[in-house]
């Protein structure tokens, strides 16, 4: 037992160090790409927390925007420093999510999917409609970057380290939540809501908890993103981006923590690789989606096991018989 723990810790350590030195070997614009990728990892992992209870929402991208707008307004209008507006961004997203729980969690399944989409679209259209204070379609620009000592967070590498540290902490927290009994209960609500209820689990509470917590973290992700770009617009959080989140999680595999990460990383990197195909790019992406769903229904995370099976590890079968 301790052996595997040590092995895991070492593996994660190596991964972390590799990530930390990675940007130094990248082209400039790929450094930016890496920053957004790491932020998107937080987006998908927080989304997975929401989906743990079995409800697929279409509002996650908008909740990210709620955090982003929140932090942008706090730092621009109220003049708060990034270090204050950033955590508050998560809080604002969580509060909005908490308010939305009342209507949204009256629904489940398909209805929840569509209901959450409608609620999100209504919020997003409000950003467009209410120019004060949201700035309409052009949103809010000149959002200040973080200030700390003399570090220049406009440069990709320092910001990357900031993002890496924050996202790592967030992932650790999300991991703790999932591995705690709360996470266990969230799973339980998904697999058999009626059984969970019969032993005293208030499923509404837990669905809400997952939604609010997930929104908190994605709110943070939103703030991280816009304090780097310096601009927040409604278009950044439209259904198109939401669809990408959904795709990353499902193609990566939503059953495990790392499946979602794998999905976001692999698909984003593939997408970037296909850049030269220009307008054909979405079609290639679409084809990959279809292919992976048809042939890897459990997601990319199941690929290693599949390979193992292909290479004939028969011990599992022997166990069975």
């Amino acid at each position, binding site marked *: 037992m301790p052996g595997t723990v040590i092995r895991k810790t070492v593996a994660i350590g190596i991964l972390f160090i590799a990530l930390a030195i990675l940007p130094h070997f990248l082209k400039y614009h790929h450094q930016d790409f890496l920053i957004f990728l790491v932020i998107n990892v937080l987006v998908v992992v927080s989304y997975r927390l929401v989906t743990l209870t079995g409800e697929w929402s279409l509002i996650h991208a908008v909740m990210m925007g709620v955090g982003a707008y929140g932090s942008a307004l706090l730092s621009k209008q109220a003049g708060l420093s990034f270090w204050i507006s950033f955590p508050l961004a998560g809080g604002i997203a969580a509060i909005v999510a908490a308010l939305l729980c009342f209507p949204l969690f009256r629904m489940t399944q398909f209805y929840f999917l569509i209901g959450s989409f409608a609620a999100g679209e209504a919020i997003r259209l409000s950003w467009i409609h209410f120019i*004060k204070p949201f700035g309409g379609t*052009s949103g809010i620009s000149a959002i200040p970057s973080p200030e700390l000592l003399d570090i220049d967070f406009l440069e990709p590498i320092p910001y990357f380290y900031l993002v890496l540290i924050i996202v790592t902490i967030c992932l650790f927290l999300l991991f703790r939540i999932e591995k705690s009994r709360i996470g266990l209960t969230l799973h339980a609500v998904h697999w058999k809501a009626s059984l969970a209820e019969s032993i005293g689990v208030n499923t509404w509470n837990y669905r809400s908890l997952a939604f609010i917590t997930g929104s908190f973290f994605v709110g943070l992700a939103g703030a991280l993103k816009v304090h780097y770009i310096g601009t927040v617009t409604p278009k950044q959080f439209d259904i198109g981006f939401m669809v990408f989140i959904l795709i990353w999680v499902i193609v990566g595999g939503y059953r495990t923590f790392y499946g979602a990460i794998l999905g976001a990383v692999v698909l984003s990197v593939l997408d970037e690789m296909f850049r030269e*195909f220009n307008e054909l790019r979405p079609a290639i992406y679409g084809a990959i989606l279809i292919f992976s769903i048809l042939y890897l229904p459990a997601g990319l995370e199941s690929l290693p096991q599949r390979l193992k099976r292909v290479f004939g590890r028969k011990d599992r079968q022997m166990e069975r018989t």
Partner: protein
Amino acid sequence: MATHTQHPARRKFLKKAAAGTVAATTASVFPNIVLSANKTLTVGMNIPMTGDYAPWGLPGLYGCEIIANNINKEGGVTIGGETYDIKVASYDHGYDTEKALQGFKKLVLEDDASMIMMLGGSTVAAVLPWATRKKVLTTTLLPSDITPDSNYLVATCESHPLYNVTGVEWLARNFPDVKSAAIVTNNDAEYGLQSAATYQAAFEVAGIDVIDTHLHGFDVTDFAPIVSSVLAKNPDVFCMATSFYVTPIMEQLYHQGYKGKIISCTLDYYDEIIAKTSKEFVNGTIFQFPDFDDPKLQEAGVNFPDPAGFDAAFRKDHPNDWSAVAWEYPAILLNWLDAAKAAGSADSESVAATLKANKQEFVFGGGDWWGSQLWGLDNALVGRWPIVVIEDGKARIQEYGDVAGWLSNNKDVLVKHMKDLGLRTV
């Protein structure tokens, strides 16, 4: 119709696919570059080439390639004693802020672009802090992007939407009976609202009552209700402030029997509109964007080399893609080259200084640096602007209006209307 059928879409598709690959590999490899011993001067285009906004990016790339090709064919451009071939490097950001930032850095740091042309809006806002820090000269088609924080963002060509005032002024002068106007536009802050505010100001100055300003979203599939609602107020002038939905709105005006004057910011693809309505209906429509085979562009004072030749070359290669941006990006490129020649260097700082120091020649002639009253910095080049009217199914320049003059007289009215619509002013 005839023009459509001559160019089957299949051919276009093959060509487009090829063009895409060329653009993507960033080197527009023309044969003469291979032969030439010249150094290369790279300009960057960080524009949408796919998605909804592609029509405001791609034609510009095609136009710049034609211009670059022409210059290179003639032996390149000499700046500070050194002769260069022009290379246009492009990056498709799909009007996405993240990608815009990445593309900007790629063009500057990896492709060594000396200047970056962009469409404007949130994508410009996203790159601006970095561009300012790195002192990269950046151009936009939207002067409203200008902020006092950045000396390196200039709008040297399209002064959207300031030129709209000239059309209104011309209308009021030629049709004194016109008393009331209604404005329809989409509700985005970059294009629609700016333009609506400008039209409101222009109508006010011209003594025409704006009885309705109808803002709509990008989700409209049918303009019948909007047009019905506006026409119910019986305006003498129907004004379209942005280009996105001109065709369906014109169609509705036609079907709902509208008989009054029509003024529009643009009338791109007006032959299609004529096909959907009638020549008689479209005749007399006032707008701001000429065809480049217009004889009036041959006159002195216009700073665009061989507009008719450019027009022909463009329409030959890209028959269905002509739009305002097709000549605007090239005009910016040409303007920048002039400044670089004058500065004797392509270095951003020197070009920017030269641009601002000299009284620049605007593409349609004239030219003043303006903007501080509205956006805090005089980084928009404002000059003469054509007033275009459809005559017998063809766009023809009536005259050139004086944007700068109007602004100097009426800037307060403009600022007031901008403020009323919640737009950023100093």
